[in-house]
């Protein structure tokens, strides 16, 4: 279900279908971060991305979400925006994301590091950490070795995410912060667009599972999909996903702005985050008792969608932040011209 993109895509529909198919195969065949990264490199993903970042990101993160894949491809999205502001890397880099529990606050410079990593740091040389120094966002480039004993699996709602939490990490002595507030804003916007897309992918897969189930499962002599209560739930879920996708598309249209389309990206992430709660509620309900079991895949969609929501701003925190800004006089940026 690839949506038509309005960003003057360099890739035609047929190419997009082919790429989507390749990505699906890739993510089925490779299940750990390193081999996914290698396989993408082999596919020539960097060139695809360079030619049309919007389409490439959309395709990759949609399939990533659908496959419930775990990798550090999101790091690449942020690093692409951060790299120009940073000194040359000494090796592969990863990103330390603000800890979801801190609700968008960046760690203070000089304080013990804390945050979330998308996976193990095997083969990673440096970790890029967004931090705050005298009210301004900065970046710290921390050698990966410093995190040696500081990480633990997040556990939480989605233990299969492979994410690692840094609750109280090293204090980065001797590391000069790089002034990079604009770069971080752009990186966060890019990350939010990608995550919103990934959430939509998870939702679409859940919806496909639910739709297939309701068509196959017969009760009272007919497929349960023929009962209005079921059909209408699926329809509501579908509308929620389409709305989320449309908002991300609109966010891409603003990506070229100096701040990277930050406002629109925030709205897109918020929308997707809110949608996943509704969509998964409907899909769980129509799957009936089977959705409660570990045998069924549905619970994995539930937990993954919720975890993705929490990264780079859960929908409630983003809504609160947006509301506060509006109340203190910030002009909303129109996401769509009506």
């Amino acid at each position, binding site marked *: 279900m690839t949506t038509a993109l309005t960003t003057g895509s360099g890739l035609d529909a047929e190419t997009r279908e082919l790429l989507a198919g390749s990505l699906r195969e890739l993510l089925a065949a490779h299940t750990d971060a390193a081999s996914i990264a290698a396989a993408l490199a082999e596919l020539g993903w960097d060139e695809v991305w360079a030619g049309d970042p919007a389409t490439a990101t959309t395709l990759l993160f949609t399939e990533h979400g659908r496959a419930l894949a775990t990798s550090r491809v999101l790091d690449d999205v942020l690093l692409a925006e951060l790299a120009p502001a940073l000194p040359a890397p000494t090796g592969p880099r990863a990103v330390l994301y603000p800890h979801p529990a801190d609700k968008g606050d960046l760690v203070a410079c000089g304080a013990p590091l804390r945050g979330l990593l998308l996976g193990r740091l095997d083969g990673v040389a440096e970790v890029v950490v967004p931090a705050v120094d005298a009210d301004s966002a900065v970046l710290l480039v921390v050698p990966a070795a410093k995190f040696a004993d500081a990480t633990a699996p*997040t556990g*939480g*709602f989605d233990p299969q995410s492979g994410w690692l939490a840094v609750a109280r990490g090293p204090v980065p002595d001797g590391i000069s912060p790089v002034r990079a507030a604009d770069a971080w804003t752009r990186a966060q916007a890019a990350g939010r667009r990608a995550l919103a897309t990934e959430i939509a992918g998870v939702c679409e897969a859940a919806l496909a599972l639910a739709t297939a189930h309701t068509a196959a499962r017969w009760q009272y002599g007919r497929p349960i999909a023929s009962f209005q209560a079921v059909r209408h739930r699926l329809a509501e879920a579908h509308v929620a996903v389409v709305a989320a996708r449309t908002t991300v598309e609109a966010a891409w249209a603003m990506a070229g702005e100096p701040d990277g389309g930050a406002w629109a990206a925030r709205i897109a992430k918020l929308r997707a985050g809110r949608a996943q709660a509704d969509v998964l509620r409907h899909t769980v309900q129509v799957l009936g*008792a089977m959705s*409660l079991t570990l045998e069924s895949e549905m619970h994995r969609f539930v937990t993954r969608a919720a975890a993705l929501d929490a990264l780079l701003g859960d929908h409630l925190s983003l809504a609160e932040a947006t509301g506060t800004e509006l109340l203190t006089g910030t002009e909303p940026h129109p996401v769509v011209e009506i």
Partner: protein
Amino acid sequence: MSDEMDAFVAEAREFLEANATRRDVPSTEVEWGRGEDRITYFGDDPPEVDARKVAAAREWQRRRYDAGFGWITGPPQYGGRGLPNVADLVYDALEAEYDVPDTSVLSLIGLGMIGPTILAHGQEPVKDRYLPAMYRGEVIACQLFSEPAAGSDLASLETTAVRDGDEWVITGQKVWTSIAHHAQIGMALCRTAPDKPKHKGITAFIVDMSAPGVDVRPLRQMSGGAEFNEVFLDEVRVPDDHRLGEVDGGWRVALTTLMNERASVGGEGAGPAARAVSPPFLTAVLKAHGRLGDAAARRRLAELAADQIATEYLNLQAVRRLRAGAQPGPEASVSKLMYAQNLTRGAHFAAEIAGPRLIADTGEWGTFSWNELLLSTPALRILGGTEEIMKNILAERVLGLPKEPGIDSTTPFRELRRSGQGRAGGKA
């Protein structure tokens, strides 16, 4: 209250005083940060703990029975005390003041539903053999109703029972059977006449769970627990005197079972899950996260509190009506729907306040533990009758709206279409 009731109360009080300790009066002040912070709707105990709890339940039930409080309203010839229904409510209210083992593993299904069914439809040998034993805590019963292809549409079940002399031979698969791993007997609904329409070809039996051919396997839930089971029945032999009701008259028997869910005073509303989403607890959650002054959060709290308090009022009024001898109305279904809704919304609200702390365990007391509850609340809207079916029932029975048109209630079962494979009537 009558003299008879007064005497009963005095006797019950004496029994409870001698055999249990009074509960500390629960204060409305929640002690934040103390004690166990796991909250779950399902039990999720390791097997040894589970076994201990079941043993304690049996032991308490035995004491109650021996003192005359095991089957307060049952007929004396089968071990009951023969008192009117109100005595049950009175005893329950008294017992709630004391710290006693949780007997729901015995009473929720066995004593509350299957016991009354055996009483109404069982043959003498089965009544004599099982009723006193059940109410004395010696025999635990489970319900072998649902099947993989027969969930909401229970009447389309496919487990077969074939007559062989004085016995029946049962083959099939049951699912979502709670308590099966502890049960000594099970009430099984079986297909005995596939050439008749689905409701007219079912027979009910009491099955000995230790009989050859009975295989119980646990089902793993997404909330982490395994309270439910699949039960495979492979040519299990059951004597005809274990049949409940008439041959092919099992649907009527099943309806007795399903109608018999005892409305216990505060029953469902008193568990740890319900307490966790009660107004005092949610207020404590707000306070602990510094959100007591947050207008939006307060409003949500007020909405939840209003619904919960009104649901309590609804339950109280239903009990009053029952006590006054009136027929139960739609309150039970409404109450179940509201309970599920209140618990779900309350869990989500608390989770939102606790916030993204859920995603990664920060070790803070009272935050991460909401995960289990959140993952188990969907169950309330599905198990024991999905929300959609409950709404159908309310609309059809109370509002008189017409049923969905369908031919499956007059067509022979064998000719009905089912999931995927065309025609029904074969073995599962």
